[in-house]
């Protein structure tokens, strides 16, 4: 096993703040939407916490965005432009998760500092970070002050429309965060990726195929 530094400090800070924030937003979001079903805290406190945590995560998003915009590490988010290549890579990865992993086959994807996402991760994170998270922040800010953003709300068809978008993405993130946490435990040991997300260093198999 060789060690590769794939998660720079700003990314690690962003990731864990985001992770804790997402959990807190899900908990307070559940409380806001399901008074009576859940009673963790008073409704008003849940709304206030939800708003503040939301703003912290928006600021945190710009830590992530700033890091990738102002360093060459943005290459990790460059999409595979050849659809057939992307499809083949995704199939290989899914076949690994669904079968090869159990057999003890090596991961078909080889991590490097500039290519740290396998094709499935790459597609998922692009959708999450460039569409879903920004849309969720946008709808959240709009719902935070409906008078200030009344024009925007009307443009999108009304407060119920904006809220429904916010809730649909929330519903997606609930399952996403469960699956994300589980797949994080599918490294060569269950804690390998977790450790790497704290230290920055991933342990990679020495295959000689890793591209830098």
């Amino acid at each position, binding site marked *: 096993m060789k060690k590769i530094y794939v998660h720079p400090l700003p990314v690690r800070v962003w990731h864990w703040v985001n992770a804790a924030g997402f959990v807190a937003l899900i908990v307070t979001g559940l409380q806001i939407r399901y008074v009576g079903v859940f009673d963790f805290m008073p409704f008003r406190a849940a709304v206030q916490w939800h708003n503040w945590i939301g703003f912290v995560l928006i600021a945190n998003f710009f830590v992530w965005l700033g890091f990738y915009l102002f360093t060459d590490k943005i290459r990790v988010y460059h999409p595979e432009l050849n659809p057939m290549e992307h499809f083949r890579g995704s199939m290989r990865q899914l076949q690994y998760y669904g079968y090869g992993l159990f057999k003890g086959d090596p991961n078909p994807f080889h991590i490097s500092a500039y290519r740290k996402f396998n094709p499935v991760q790459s597609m998922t994170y692009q959708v999450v970070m460039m569409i879903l998270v920004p849309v969720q922040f946008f709808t959240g800010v709009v719902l935070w002050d409906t*008078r200030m953003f009344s024009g925007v709300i009307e443009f999108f068809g009304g407060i*119920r429309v904006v809220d*429904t978008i916010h*809730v649909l993405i929330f519903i997606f993130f609930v399952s996403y965060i469960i699956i994300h946490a*589980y797949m994080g435990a599918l490294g060569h040991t269950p804690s390998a990726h977790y450790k790497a997300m704290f230290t920055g260093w991933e342990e990679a198999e020495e295959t000689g195929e890793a591209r830098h």
Partner: protein
Amino acid sequence: MDPALTRNGLENRGNTARLGALIAAFLGLAAAAHTVVAAAPEAKAAAQTVAKLSDADNTCLACHSFEGMEKKFASGEKLSLQVLGASFAQSVHASAGCAGCHADVDVAKHPGPAKKFKTAREHSLAFTGVCRNCHEDKFKLYEGSVHEKLLKSGVDAAPVCTDCHNPHSVKARAALASISGVSCRKCHEPIFDAYAASMHGTARGKLGHSAAPICADCHRAHDIGFAGASDRLKAACLGCHQGVADVHARWLPNAARHLDVIACAACHSPAAERKVDLRLVESGTQARVAEGDGNAELENRLAAADKDGKGIDAIELWNVLREINRDRGEGRTTLRGRLEVRTGVQAHQLADKSQALRTCETCHRQGADPFQNVSVSIIGVDGRPLRQEVQKEVLTSVLSVDSMGGFYAVGGTRIKLLDLLLVLSVLGGLAVPVGHQMLRWMVRRHLRLQAEAARAAAGAAAGGEASGGPSGPGASRAPGK
């Protein structure tokens, strides 16, 4: 005093003087024509106050100040013709004098034959035109009011001038002066009593705070509209309670939105039951849509939408909105939801602000009281809101995203389909690790069995060497961990 009244009053004084001379000449005749015996005290009272009035008016009062002077109608009703000189002398009409209003009286023939009024009401309605001679401005306000519209629609009991103002004792703003004398109570007793017991009524009545509002302060006097037909009432609240937006914003998230969508009484009348009124409005201006506006028979259409008589359901509401938009112009008409109290009495039971609702959970939970009673409304041809019952499930239907995109209360009107999706999301999320681990177990079991079978086959082959050769591809590799 009203400038118009003053001007007209002065003009009338010339007529009064001329008429007064004639009346004086016929004093004996007039007195004899009535079969009224004056009691000494009344006569004394009249004599004490007439000095403030013109001679002509005193002449009239010489008869009309006596108790018992009355007119009989065909219906058997009686109308008192007594005018107390003291009250009249202090009224705003004193300057106009008797003849200012009773110019039709022919003193030569007075009292003359009775006019053919069947009822006292008919008489009052006929005399309303006299008020207009001086009070044209008030009449213009009255026209288009709820009272005038009711009168025009054939409701004879709808009030005219004399129902609120006694013409022989009327003082400036007298109708507003005292809580006990408010004329509105005659018709709106339950509502008035609720008001009188409210913090506004208590402040004005018992505590004597003249700044505390009475009926006309919120509803206006002559141009009174249908409560709930416009945002006028809210403007009345905010007119006195300035800075309310800031006060609410200190503790209430999205305070401005709450103030836009919720009637003040919904929280400040804590004992009230609440409801949702889905108002049909113009998409752009948010003005309420009225019957006959835009070639759509809205009232009939809304009534017809409720096919089973149980209230309009989500699909029916969605369909009728589509039809209305097809007729009135695509996208022109939309629904604006408002949270209100259910009755006029409840709307007036305003409590001290310390008792106002501050608990978010009162509304922001499934099954909350305001969302159990829903209506859709338009403004009818007479200016009154016309409401059609709507099933409460429309608020939680997925169709509401389209039909009432502008109305949403977190938790209280949440869409049920989204609840189902959330449950599926959680189950789906949990199914991935569980399913993946099961798949792992099955794959490994399969591989193990395959390997065992291969080993057995290899063993068998080794035992019977005659067959010879490798046993198969699975034999060469053991499953991973």
